[in-house]
């Protein structure tokens, strides 16, 4: 367990040596020692619909990597900063800024990040967006802070897709929310189930499975226009869509030839081709980050296990060996970690495996349908407790956990979207 943990950390260290090397070394101790940071109230932030500094504080706190120091008054980005004084207050970094309403209705946020230890300015940004997207601006600043302090790109400004269902009312919704669960928008509303949403790599479309035709059929929907199209509706069941990293094609699971098998299809629905070949079940295909490998679940050896094969199909190699029920493979964006669900001792748990060493780590219990954050640092999953399903997030080292709560219904099938500008 600790081996995988330190492995992930050292990988992070190597990957991030290009910038902020000195701060990065502190990552090794982060899980035990959080980075103490002060986030001032931004000057005039009341002109925006939401308090930018509040959102930044919440993001940083949720990451588990920062310890946010309370009780900081208003400080704009133009204020003269006494680094030594902030250092003595226990802050290794200080965030200051201001908000302005522009004549065209947009809001403009200026911010600066100070390193109080080395007495330097680490970053400065000016961002402007329609006032409706105040939260996005705040998340982008949090992303910048996260990246400057850890060397890893932040994922606060990303979005997630999930299914909100109320079976009794026959109310099924595919919803899109910010990664913190706020700003919920309904992409699809249906009387029949919806499962398996999958973001296109550009963040503009979502593929999903809808049962509105009394059977599972795969749709791709443009989120902005609401235009949608069936991309696969073969005889039998059509499910488990997953995009190739370049967005040109998807891999899907179809039963057109009998039992469920893995196929490839172009993003416009053309060029359907079979990729896997077994007499049993092959399903839940997922491209690796480089697009060259497909991981999938197969019962060819008896119970379900995870296998991999070339993205063009052919022979498969078994990946999981512990436990008799291993499903739902997902690969991190750096290609180094596999997350999946394993049934051990009765329950379904979320596991992560370092693919190079095969070392396994149990991250969470009562978990299904995992999905990596685009920076590979967190995994969102569905968790069933007390008869209700909700979403939760765990860091890949297993140390930070949060629950995304909602008011009503069952929330399941999370899929974490890509980085977006």
């Amino acid at each position, binding site marked *: 367990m600790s081996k995988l943990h330190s492995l992930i950390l050292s990988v992070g260290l190597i990957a991030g040596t290009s910038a902020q090397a000195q701060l990065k070394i502190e990552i090794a101790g982060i899980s035990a020692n959080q980075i103490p940071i002060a986030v001032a109230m931004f000057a005039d932030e009341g002109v925006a619909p939401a308090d930018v500094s509040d959102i930044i504080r919440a993001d940083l706190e949720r990451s588990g990597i920062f310890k946010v120091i309370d009780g900081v008054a208003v400080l704009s980005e133009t204020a003269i900063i006494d680094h030594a004084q902030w250092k003595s207050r226990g802050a290794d970094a200080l965030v200051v800024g201001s908000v302005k309403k522009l004549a065209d209705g947009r809001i403009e946020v200026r911010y600066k990040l100070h390193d109080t230890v080395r007495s330097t300015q680490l970053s400065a940004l000016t961002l402007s967006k329609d006032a409706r997207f105040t939260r996005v601006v705040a998340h982008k600043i949090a992303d910048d802070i996260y990246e400057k302090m850890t060397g890893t790109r932040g994922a606060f400004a990303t979005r997630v897709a999930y299914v909100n269902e109320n*079976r009794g009312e026959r109310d099924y919704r595919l919803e899109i929310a910010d990664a913190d669960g706020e700003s919920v928008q309904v992409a699809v509303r249906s009387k029949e189930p919806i*499962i*398996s949403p999958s973001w296109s790599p550009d963040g503009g479309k979502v593929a999903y499975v809808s049962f509105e035709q009394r059977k599972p059929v795969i749709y791709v929907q443009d989120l902005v226009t609401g235009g949608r199209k069936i991309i696969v509706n073969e005889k*039998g069941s059509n499910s488990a869509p997953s995009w190739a990293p370049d967005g040109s094609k998807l891999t899907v699971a179809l039963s057109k030839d009998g039992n469920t098998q893995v196929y490839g299809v172009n993003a416009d629905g053309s060029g359907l081709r079979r990729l896997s070949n077994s007499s049993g079940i092959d399903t839940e295909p997922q491209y690796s980050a480089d697009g060259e490998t497909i991981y999938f679940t197969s019962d060819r050896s008896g119970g379900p296990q995870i296998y991999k094969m070339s993205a063009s199909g052919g022979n498969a190699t078994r990946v999981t060996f512990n436990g008799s029920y291993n*499903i739902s493979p997902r690969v991190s964006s750096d290609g180094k970690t596999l997350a999946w669900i394993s049934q051990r001792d009765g329950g379904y748990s979320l596991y992560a495996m370092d693919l190079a060493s095969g070392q396994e780590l149990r991250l969470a219990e009562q978990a299904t349908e995992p999905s990596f954050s685009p920076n590979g640092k967190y995994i969102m999953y569905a968790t069933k407790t007390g008869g209700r399903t909700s979403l939760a997030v765990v860091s890949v080292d297993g140390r930070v956990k949060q629950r995304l709560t909602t008011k009503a219904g069952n929330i399941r099938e999370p899929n974490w979207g890509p980085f977006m500008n």
Partner: protein
Amino acid sequence: MRNFKSLAFIVTSAALLSACSTPMKTEVAPVETRTTEVPKGAPAEPREVATVTAPAVDPLNDPKGVLAKRSVYFDYDSYVVRDDGKSVVESHSGYLNKNKGRKVLIQGNTDERGGTEYNLALGQKRAEAVRKSMAALGVPESQMEAVSLGEEKPKAIGSGEAAWAENRRADIVY
């Protein structure tokens, strides 16, 4: 859908009945019509009896018939049609063989335990088992489609063996 079918049946039956009644109407038709018929032969013999056959009730719509049973149940982690499901498969195969215009959707289901997509594939395995049994009894592929609803449309709500057993099922849907 079933309601629609029954409605279609009633409409058809009504059409048949009105067709049968047409000759009776000509008996009481206006004089000019009768004058054209009379030269054909002798006047109608009052002792003759025309037989009317009432249309048979489609056995599919008989709520007490064997075709009213449309669910095939499976054991835990099993994808083989049990003995108690064989009569269901046989009666529907017989009906489909006699009614070539009819098509069925065989919807496989699973209980709630496990992953969404793997359960969908397991439900497909159950639908496939029923489809293969029906194919073995001569039902052509063109009349059947095996699909899965996985764990998404449970018949029995809740957890526990009773609910799970009810949901390990394939339904034959016309």
